[in-house]
């Protein structure tokens, strides 16, 4: 059940009305709704997530300071994740044999990367005594399964989510909800997905699926993909945050206009923030990152961490190389001299070009495809797919592309305090009606592409 579908719209309305009508049982309603929502993913997926919940729940009930217990929990979760996500990558022969034995190909369970990381964060924080133990199975299940964020995040920490869950299950007190705010986030998300991401998808796909003919087409393809994946994923997150907020749960922000970043560290503070923070807190720092170590070691730690971040996206060398280069780029950016150009337009342009180059590796199906594509970007190779056959076309395309960056700026303004004040002021039924109608019609729109969210496959 995708967020950009009418089924989800109707499902959400049903859950919302039930929560409003029987607010006493809102926790149970939301948990049942989450189970039903995840049930749509398939029987294997729901069985696996229940299995994962039960194992983690019972293991977390025992002595929390025991290091062996923590390793056992991490091992169990990593094994489950690796089996479903990385077995073809690490042990292809055995994996194909397994497929033959069971006469079926076991697909990647929906949202497994996200909920596994969320569970791990809880278990590690529990060991570190940074979070209160979740003693109730239904509350723990809610923590893992809450439907607006189970499939593709944001990855929420237990110390942020658990107090809200407790309030849902144990208290009749509902906190003040500014519905206009939640609905506006949903509108923003649906617009990003239906209007922008799905419109860009056919063009970036066409360029990447055929080797671009010239430098212009190659850079254009990368630029379009950069915005496609941004609008797609941040659109999903906006809907998730908005939908959760209306139901009384606050989720963390996951994106802050990443293409306005002027250096790689700034970029990762704006792109998939919850994953960046997770990797920083549970991989980078425990490995010794951020400490005064020898240059080689700190370089190695950063590269390894970013390679793991790349691998999280999928079992492909392109993701690993993508992560490794990001690591190298972050590392070397520390030694870039700070001068009056720092933070300037030139600096931004240089950084954004590297981001586009790295998206090529991320988007390509193999490293050889990526290298060919990058060669075209610098004029060393030529394919056969060209866009913008004359100067007028090229000018129009550049103008259209600049509108995408402009949309980024608008988004920045929309998150300002002034706008938030206005949102609060106009929290009334007429505005709610307007926003619901906009969401409804955009979901009814059948679209040319209508592709599922990109991050669902991770």
């Amino acid at each position, binding site marked *: 059940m995708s967020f950009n579908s009418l089924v989800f719209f109707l499902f959400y309305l049903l859950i919302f009305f039930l929560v409003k009508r029987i607010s006493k049982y809102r926790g149970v309603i939301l948990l049942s709704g989450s189970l039903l929502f995840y049930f749509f993913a398939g029987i294997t997926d729901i069985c696996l997530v229940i299995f994962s919940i039960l194992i983690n729940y019972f293991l977390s009930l025992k002595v929390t300071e025991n290091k062996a217990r923590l390793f056992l929990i991490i091992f169990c979760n990593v094994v489950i994740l690796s089996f479903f996500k990385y077995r073809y990558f690490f042990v292809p022969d055995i994996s194909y044999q397994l497929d033959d034995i069971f006469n079926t190909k076991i697909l990647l369970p929906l949202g497994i990367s996200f909920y596994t990381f969320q569970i791990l964060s809880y278990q590690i924080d529990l060991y570190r005594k940074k979070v209160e133990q979740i003693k109730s199975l239904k509350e723990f299940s809610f923590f893992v399964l809450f439907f607006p964020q189970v499939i593709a995040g944001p990855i929420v920490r237990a110390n942020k989510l658990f107090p809200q869950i407790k309030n849902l299950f144990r208290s009749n007190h509902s906190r003040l909800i500014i519905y206009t705010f939640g609905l506006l986030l949903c509108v923003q998300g649906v617009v990003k997905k239906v209007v922008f991401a799905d*419109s860009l998808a056919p063009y970036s796909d066409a360029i990447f699926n055929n080797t671009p003919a010239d430098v212009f087409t190659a850079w254009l393809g990368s630029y379009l993909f950069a915005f496609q994946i941004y609008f797609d994923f941040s659109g999903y997150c906006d809907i998730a945050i908005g939908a959760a907020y209306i139901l009384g749960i606050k989720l963390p922000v996951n994106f802050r206009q990443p293409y306005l970043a002027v250096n790689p560290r700034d970029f990762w503070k704006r792109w998939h923030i919850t994953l960046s923070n997770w990797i920083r807190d549970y991989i980078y720092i425990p490995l010794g990152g951020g400490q005064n170590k020898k240059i080689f070691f700190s370089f190695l730690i950063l590269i390894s961490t970013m390679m793991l971040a790349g691998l999280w996206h999928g079992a492909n060398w392109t993701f690993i190389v993508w992560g490794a280069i990001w690591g190298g780029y972050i590392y070397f950016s520390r030694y870039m001299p700070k001068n009056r150009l720092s933070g300037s337009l030139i600096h931004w342009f240089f950084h954004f070009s590297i981001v586009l180059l790295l998206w090529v590796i991320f988007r390509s199906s193999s490293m050889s495809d990526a290298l060919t594509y990058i060669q075209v970007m610098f004029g060393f190779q030529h394919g056969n797919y060209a866009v913008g056959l004359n100067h007028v076309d090229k000018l129009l395309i550049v103008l259209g592309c600049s509108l995408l960056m402009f949309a980024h700026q608008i988004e920045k303004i929309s998150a300002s305090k002034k706008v938030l004040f206005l949102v609060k002021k106009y929290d009334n039924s007429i505005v709610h009606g307007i*926003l619901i109608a*906009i969401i409804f019609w955009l979901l009814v729109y059948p679209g040319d592409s*209508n592709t599922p969210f990109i991050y669902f496959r991770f």
Partner: protein
Amino acid sequence: MSLSRLTKQNHLHLLLGLIVGSLIIECSFRIIELTLLWKVLPVAEISLFKPDYYSGYRFRENAEGIWTTENRTKIKISSIGLRDNEINNELSDMYRVVMVGDSIAEALQVDLNDTFQALLEKKIKKLEVINLSMSGAVPSVQVALMKHYGTNFNANAMLYIVDAGDFDKINTQNSSGFPKYMPYKESYSLDYSFRDNANYQFRTSKAGQLIYWMLSHSRLALIANSRKNRGLFPKKNIQNINVHTNNNESCSADLQATMNSKWDLMNSYGSENVRNVFLRDIAAISNKNSTKTILAMRNIHGCIDNNSQELHEFVKKILDGYDIDFVDLDYELYQLSNSYPERFPKDKLKGFKSSLGYGHLNEKGHEAYSEILKVKLKKFLML
């Protein structure tokens, strides 16, 4: 103010908001259409058809909008319901060809000026091609269209663009929305029973007319209509355009033999065969109106290669009996591409997501078709 009154007021406000929100979406779609962004951003796809007493369905006169399935083009239907320019009846010295075909000839995927019909008019001076083609117009619909509408144009020639695969569909397809060939007195004849269907009855009723009026005037109605056509809750990605799997470059003897045998069957069925009935009907229309007829066919091969002469001779022999001329479009396209590989490279002729000679044509494909038909028509009309 009492609680119930407050709730009622809230509901009224919500309803008002829903109406305003819908109007905002309506305006947004219209604004996109007015700018160049219609090429990229979401737009409401045009609804083209209305019920028709003879052919089951026809273009709605003066319908105007954007086609989004496979490429994006602005479509304007003429005042007499054709995907064509307005017809100028004062030009008496023109040679007139009435063409009828399926979606290939309807060509919604490209601008009207880039269709092979328009290119033919540019390439042959004094030629006017009137296009009656519509998506899904199988041979029985083509006959109905030509019989009831095509004959009004006093044409010098009639051109049928037929997919050979559509002959196979006739017997099995439940074509309740349009005329089809049904067994009648040991032969076949056009059956118009679709007029009794509830669907047709509704579409021609006042309520149906109201819906068509809304489709002509509201983008929201178009969006709802597109959604209805694609399914309210589609399970999978709806972009499932049929990709022809035939590999034209490698012909297997078995495949070719299968296709040849289909034409053999046609002969053995004799007068009862639907294909022969179609040929009989188009020949009769031609004789009655003292015009010539060309049958341009696609998909008569399993694949295209240089060994098609035998099949051509066979088909021509059949068609000669009806005084119908013949063009094998796939074969000619293959030859054209081989003769002029730079002008018509095979990889540029694959149309929209299909293999060479199949699927809807792109601009290059239309140019190639116009070259093929130009040669044929010039010879045929002795120009």
